[in-house]
Each structure stands twice: as C-alpha cells, then as structure tokens.
C-alpha cells in the first residue's frame, strides 16, 4: 500500500522518469536533441587554463570542505562537481597546466576524486602528469580547509580558480583570496544560500541549477546532455500546476487538501 501523502511525489517521479527515458532513448538512437543554451562558465575554464599557462601559475580546483557528500541528499551536487573536475583536468592535460585539487573533507570521496583525476589524465594520453601530492587533504572542517587553500594560493600562485559543488561559508575566503592573488574565478553552487558569494566574487558564474547543466554539457556524453532536456519538462509541469492551482483556488477549490495527497 502506498504511503499516505506521497501520491504527488510518486506522480512527479514517474513523470520525470518518463521524460528522462524519452530523451535518453532519443539520444541512444542518435536523434536530434534540444540544444542547451550557452553557459559561459564552461568555456571560461578552458580559457582560464590557458591564462594560467601564460602566467606560469597552477590551476586550483575545489569542491568545498563538505563537497564530497556521497550518501546525503546533496550527492547530485558532488557528482556534478566531479564532472567539472574531469573537464578541468582534461583542459589542463591538453594545454599542459599544473592542477592542484583541494580534496573535500569526506574521506570516503577521495577514491572517486583520485579516480576521476587519474582517468582524465589517461584519457588525454598524459597519465604521467598525475601527481598525488597535488591532491591536498586538510581534514573535515571548513576552518582548516579555507585557511589551507588560501595559504596554497599564496605559496603556489593561482592562475585559474575553479570552485564548484557543495559550498557553505567556506567559499568566501577562497574566492576572495584567489581574486586578491590575481586569479580568474569560475564557480558556483546549487546551494542557494551561498550562491550570492559566487555571484559577487566570480568572473564566470554557475548559478544554482546551471551547475548541473554545465556538468552534463562538459561530459560530452549524449545521454547526459539529453537528460538536461527532461529537467525542463519538470519545470513546465511545476509552472502548470501553480497556474492551475491558482485558478482552481480562485474558483473555490481547496488546494491545500489536494496538495496533501
């Protein structure tokens, strides 16, 4: 028997599943997919890597002190950030820039982070560029994380600073310090509460759900790109239920009880 009060949840999940299936099937058959609008921050990563080489400074990548959440409700953000990590590594490998990755505090995410970095170098045919010492770990605390990153900017220099993923207050100091040391900042988080810091301090911003779209876009994988189109189906659905809800409510229908299902 279905749990009471979850009919809407199930309905929405089924709708989203159908949308994802539909677009992925299209991608599988090689059919034309809706194009995703430009996200300037994606191209900015490549440009920033080139800039770092010109300045002879390393590229820094961080996902946040709490950015390695694999078994919480923020796992999707971790996965999106890892996609952008893969893209950044490939850009660095292609152009020959040094990359320093500031590993999140959750130790359980380290194997995935190292795997992504190592494989991305391998994909570009330059496995020898992988250096484990450039995966820096500072414990699971935003205090140690932010201080150590800032120190690293000062010590190693910073040409491009990519901060994406799950960020709390820990984003302000790295973004500010990187700008202070002359870096180009690219970043964003889907945690709305902290998005302001990225809006104010980055040169190229990934605002809220743009992070996911960017992650899919840089993957170069048609299934990933296709699934972004299904997000939009969900958005149309939400817009529709809000408009219908307002109309019905104006007509005297008790929407509070209908939404309770």
């Amino acid at each position, binding site marked *: 028997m279905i749990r009471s009060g979850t009919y809407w949840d199930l309905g929405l999940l089924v709708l*989203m599943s159908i949308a994802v299936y539909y677009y992925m099937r299209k991608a599988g058959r090689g059919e034309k997919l809706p194009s995703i609008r430009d996200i300037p921050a994606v191209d900015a990563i490549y440009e920033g890597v080139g800039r770092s080489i010109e300045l002879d400074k390393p590229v820094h990548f961080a996902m946040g002190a709490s950015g390695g959440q694999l078994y919480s409700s923020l796992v999707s953000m971790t996965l999106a950030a890892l996609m952008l990590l*893969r893209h950044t590594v490939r850009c660095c490998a292609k152009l020959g820039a040094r990359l320093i990755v500031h590993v999140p505090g959750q130790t*359980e995410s380290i194997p*995935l982070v190292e795997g992504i970095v190592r494989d991305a170098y391998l994909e570009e045919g330059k496995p020898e560029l992988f250096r484990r010492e450039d995966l820096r770990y500072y414990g699971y605390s935003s205090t140690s994380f932010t201080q150590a990153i800032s120190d690293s900017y000062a010590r190693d220099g910073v040409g491009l600073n990519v901060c994406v993923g799950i960020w709390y207050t820990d984003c302000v100091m790295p973004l500010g310090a990187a*700008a202070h040391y002359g870096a180009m900042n690219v970043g964003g988080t889907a945690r709305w509460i902290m998005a302001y810091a990225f809006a104010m301090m980055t040169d190229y911003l990934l605002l809220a759900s743009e992070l996911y779209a960017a992650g899919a876009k840089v993957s170069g994988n048609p299934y*990933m790109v296709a699934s972004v189109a299904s997000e939009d189906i969900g958005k149309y659905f939400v817009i529709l239920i809000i408009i219908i809800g307002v109309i019905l409510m104006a007509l005297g229908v008790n929407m509070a009880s209908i939404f309770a299902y």
Partner: protein
Amino acid sequence: MAEVFIKRDLPLALIFIIGILVIIEFFFPHPALSAIKAELGTWTVIIANVSIFLGLFYMSYAQYRMLQRQKTLSGYIYFITPFVALCLFFIGAAFPGYTSSPQYQWLYQNIYRAQVAMYVSLPLFYCYYAAYRAFRIRSIEALALMLGGLLYTFRQIPLFTYLCPPLHPIGEWVLLVPNVAGGRGAVICVALASIVVGLRTLVGKEVTTIEVR
C-alpha cells in the same frame, strides 16, 4: 568480459539495486524494506568512518612532498606542526572520558573554537573587498542585488531602523516577499535537476560513476 562485469557493471548494478530499494521503501513502506534501509544507513556511516585514515595518508604525503621541495628550517617546522597538533589531541583523548575528557575539551575549546570563530569572521572582510572591487552597479540586476542586500542589512542593524523606522518593515518585506519568490524558483529548479542526476545515476548513465577505472 568478466573483468568488465566485476570492475564496472557490478558496481553499477549495486547502485541501481540499493537506490531503487530506498525509493520503493519510501513509497511502499514494508517492515522488511524499512529494516534494509535502516541497515544501509548504518553501513554508510561505518564505511565512511573506516575510510578516515585515507585522509591522514593524503595529508601526510602532501606534507612530505612539500618538505622535499623546501628543506629549510621553516620547511621542517611547517612539516612537523600538523603532526604535533595531531599528537596533542590524541594525548588529550587518552585521558579518561576520551573526547569528553576535560583535557580534550580544553584543547578543543581554546584552539579549535578560537580558530573557527575567527575564521567565520574573516569573510566579512572579503565581502567588503568584493563590494569595493567587484560590486559595480552597471545593470538593473546588479542594482536589484544591491538593493535587496542593503535593505535587508538596514533591517538587521538597529541604528538604521532607529534613524529611519520605515526601513524595518521594508527590510522585512524584502525578506518575506521577493526573496521568497526568487529563492523558491531556484530551489525548485535545483531539486528538479537533482532528480534527473539521481535517475541518470540509477540507470548507469552518470559518467562519473561509470568511467572511473
């Protein structure tokens, strides 16, 4: 073939099975499923905690390589410092009470808390830095950001509401009306995107979980 199955397909299948189990339990609660879900919850905590020494390894390795590059007195001091701190806290926890011992609590409060409290203050200055360096009112969006920020700031600082009482209800209105509208739209879109990532992961089409060797 078998290698691909063990190294790639089986972990993907595991993600699918576990994820679907958790989802089914949510919609169709059954004591057996709930027990599995609760067990999985415990497992995740144990797995994460058992892996804790990976962090120590990576930290030590980066420290060691840093020392290799900088074999000076300051290099040695920076190399040894985290290990001294580590030992100090281990000693604190060796007293009866483990991490609740007065010795550990003393260290925790006076070292850790002092650093955390100060670290949370530093962004204040970076916000000022951003306001000075980057916050240019050159578009209507930038103006909206600044107005939203300043009006809510005035509401939070008694001096402003004392000098100009209408700032209080205006600031509260910003918080409870346009802020709610913008925030809600963003939260809904992020949630939809998360569901898509989740579904993609479950069906084994999320590149991060497939391609890692």
